[in-house]
């Protein structure tokens, strides 16, 4: 390699903090021209912050950035990044529905008829088709976006970036909503881009993808660069070791699983849901915390929604408290389920309502009298009960939940269920966006609930949390349970290996 010219991007000593906590500290990062470079790290390692800095969505505090031989000033903006040729393929696709492929590719840059301000539609379609054919994609320029699959839409996003002469293409978890066949097609496209001299920065949790694709891998942990691996050094196990990075000694190394002997609360057998879940069998007992691990898109959330009764299933049996059970939301609530959804702001709380109002809404049956009239006094009692039980701060039942911190919002969501005769509590990502102190309290609350005889199911992408909290862990992959950790010691590494399909499949 001879010097500067091989590097498309050189970052040195990048620091970034969001009012307080340091998200990136002294990160060095480089991209070579025309390579496929993967950026890996656990949730919160700083990957997305680094990408945001590159694309000008947020500004770095310190450090130098040189792109294509040009120094990038600290005040880097989104438009400037675009002008440099840095393109992002957005996870939530940013296409305009109702428009054709060609219209989306050339949006705001449509070719015009000479001398007129009218769009030359024929030329636009021809240019789009040429671009599509040059890369050999299976698309028609005149197809309307609405009729395309997610994979095809992503292709259109890539074409849009290509037509804008991108030299660096950033893909953030591009395969999370793709089928296996679509993912394979995407890899073809990525290799094609590489062959055309375009640099690809690839971000993924899926080790086998990183392994298959990458020329180099940069590993981030806790906002620091841990290692840069060259092609021949890359192995999934090594990447995971670097990502987790804790020395495997003492009680930090893993958590002992405890087998619970309580009677089963929920038994699921052979559950299948079209395109989402395949042959799921498990049970959860009184007093047990059952953890579900797996990558995003592995079917964890879908499974929770199905056993709660939100989504339908095609085959399989469910028994609840020993009796056959067909879940529906109303029956689940009446039967003693509690459900804390993943998207707290969207599905868990009503921000404008007070703590009393939020807790009351799930307990209207308990606080209403003979004529269906709701007793304000009873609602207030419930709210006070939940506030004391969970130590919600501030302890004011009238305060709108939207004004509380993330941790306290989460407590209110859990609190909705606590004051009932709770038998099964399902918590999807219990501590996302919560500060450390509140996390600890949430763990204690969940533990206490389990000790009092509630069966608790948690879903978490935070491996430390999952291994620490669970008495037993089931790992999902592509809609199947691929591994059970029921006894002995389990480490974060084990779970991640199983999620990535590296650890040999041992069905429970």
């Amino acid at each position, binding site marked *: 390699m001879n010097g500067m010219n091989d590097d498309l991007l050189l970052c040195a000593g990048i620091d970034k903090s969001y009012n307080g906590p340091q998200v990136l500290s002294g990160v060095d990062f480089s991209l070579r021209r025309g390579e496929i470079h993967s950026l890996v790290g656990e949730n919160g390692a700083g990957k997305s912050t680094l990408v945001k800095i590159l694309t000008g969505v947020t500004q770095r505090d310190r450090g130098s950035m040189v792109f294509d031989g040009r120094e990038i000033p600290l005040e880097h903006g989104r438009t400037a990044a675009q002008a440099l040729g840095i393109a992002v393929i*957005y996870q939530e696709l*940013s*296409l*305009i*529905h*109702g*428009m054709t492929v060609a*219209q989306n590719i050339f*949006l*705001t840059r*449509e070719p*015009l008829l000479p001398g007129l*301000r*009218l*769009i030359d*539609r024929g030329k636009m379609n021809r240019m789009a088709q040429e671009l599509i054919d040059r890369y050999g994609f299976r698309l028609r320029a005149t197809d*309307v976006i609405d*009729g395309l*699959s997610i994979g095809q839409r992503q292709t259109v996003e890539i074409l849009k970036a290509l037509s804008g002469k991108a030299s660096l293409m950033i893909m953030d978890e591009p395969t999370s909503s793709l*089928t*296996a*066949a*679509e993912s*394979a097609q995407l890899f073809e496209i990525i290799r094609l881009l590489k062959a055309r001299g375009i640099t690809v920065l690839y971000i993924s949790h899926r080790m086998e993808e990183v392994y298959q694709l990458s020329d180099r891998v940069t590993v981030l942990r806790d906002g620091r660069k841990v290692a840069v691996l060259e092609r021949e050094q890359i192995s999934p196990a090594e990447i995971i070791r670097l990502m987790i990075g804790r020395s495997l000694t003492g009680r930090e190394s893993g958590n002992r699983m405890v087998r619970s002997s309580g009677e089963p609360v929920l038994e699921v057998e052979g559950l299948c849901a*079209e*395109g989402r879940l395949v042959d799921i069998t498990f049970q959860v007992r009184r007093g047990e915390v059952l953890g579900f691990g797996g990558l995003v898109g592995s079917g964890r959330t879908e499974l929770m929604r199905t056993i709660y009764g939100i989504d339908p299933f095609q085959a399989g049996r469910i028994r609840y408290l020993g009796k056959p059970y067909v879940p529906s939301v109303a029956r689940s609530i009446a039967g003693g389920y509690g459900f804390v959804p993943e998207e707290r702001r969207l599905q868990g709380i009503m921000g404008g309502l007070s703590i009393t109002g939020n807790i009351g809404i799930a307990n209207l049956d308990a606080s209403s009298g003979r004529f269906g009239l709701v007793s304000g006094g009873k609602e207030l009692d419930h709210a006070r009960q939940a506030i004391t039980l969970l130590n919600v701060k501030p302890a004011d039942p009238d305060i709108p939940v939207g004004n509380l911190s993330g941790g306290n919002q989460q407590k209110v969501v859990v609190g909705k269920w606590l004051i009932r005769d709770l038998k099964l509590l399902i918590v999807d990502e219990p501590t996302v966006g919560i500060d450390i102190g509140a996390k600890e309290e949430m763990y204690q609350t969940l533990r206490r609930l389990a000790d009092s005889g509630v069966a608790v199911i948690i879903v978490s992408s935070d491996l430390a949390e999952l291994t620490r909290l669970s008495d037993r862990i089931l790992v999902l992959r*592509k*809609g199947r349970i691929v591994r059970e950790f029921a006894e002995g010691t389990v480490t974060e590494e084990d779970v991640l290996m199983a999620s990535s399909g590296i650890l040999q499949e041992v069905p429970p």
Partner: protein
Amino acid sequence: MSISAVRRLILTGLLIAIGAALSFASPAFFTVGNLMTLLQEASQTGIVAVGFTLVLITAGIDMSIGAIIAVTAMLCVNFLYYTHLPAYLFIPVALAGGCAIGWFNGFVITRFKLPEFIVTLATRGLLTGLALIIAVKDADGFVKNVFIEDPLFLRFGGAIGPVYFIIPVFFALAAATQFFLKRTRAGTNVYATGANPAAARLSGINTARTLVGVYMFSGFCAALAAVFLSARMMTAMPEFGIGSEMDVIAAVVIGGTPFTGGVGDIWGTVIGTLFLATIKNGILKLGLSPYIQPIAIGGIIVVVVVVDVWYKGFAEAVAARAARQKRLLDGEGA
């Protein structure tokens, strides 16, 4: 064939069927005179509906269109009564007035990020009162009926042979607007702003400017309709146009432009306008009470919206099922 094409075909077929049925039921329906009246009425609503369609494509709404008609009509009468200026001078002023009101709507909506419904509803209130205030009064303070005598102005209400002047104007405006929507960058921006404002901004579209432009155009169309209405009536009243929102919204929604934005076009609105005018005209020709017109219009809106939502859900369910099946096959193949 796409969902919207099927829908349009059904609507056109229905329009022809209703027209044929009315021709059989009433000999007074299928005459040149009546058809021209029908087209004239359709054009009166249609001109406003063209502007309103653009607003609806951006996922907005303009409740002030009726009040803009009232105010600009009063503006015309004021000029005639007090200044005696010729029509070719004050008609452009009235049209500019419509644009200015539209600009105000768009500016307040985008600058302060307020809901379109509230802003234009407030404007509607303001303008309704303003129209009454600027109306020409007699000595007792009552609104005075001013007869328009300007010959050029009155030509707007006239006809060339059996064809009312407003009819070709409406169709020309519709054609030009359709062309604008489909063939210019600015037209593309209107769709993008309505379909996905975040993505539109990411692609470099100035969505605020697009919205302001759309509300200005809506105001312009309403003012144009006011000129034709006053010319045909040979006078103007401060209550002109108030309440006509109902017909305009009905025409656009029947035409297939939904409230969710990003979809729809002017051809649909033209068909919707004709559909509505045929129903209204038919009710009169069948000798039914004119009071059932609003009931019929309200009923049609409900039916159209329910069928649209049902059909969209049905089409999506079919597509989702196909996608899931494909996914399952892929999964097994991989």
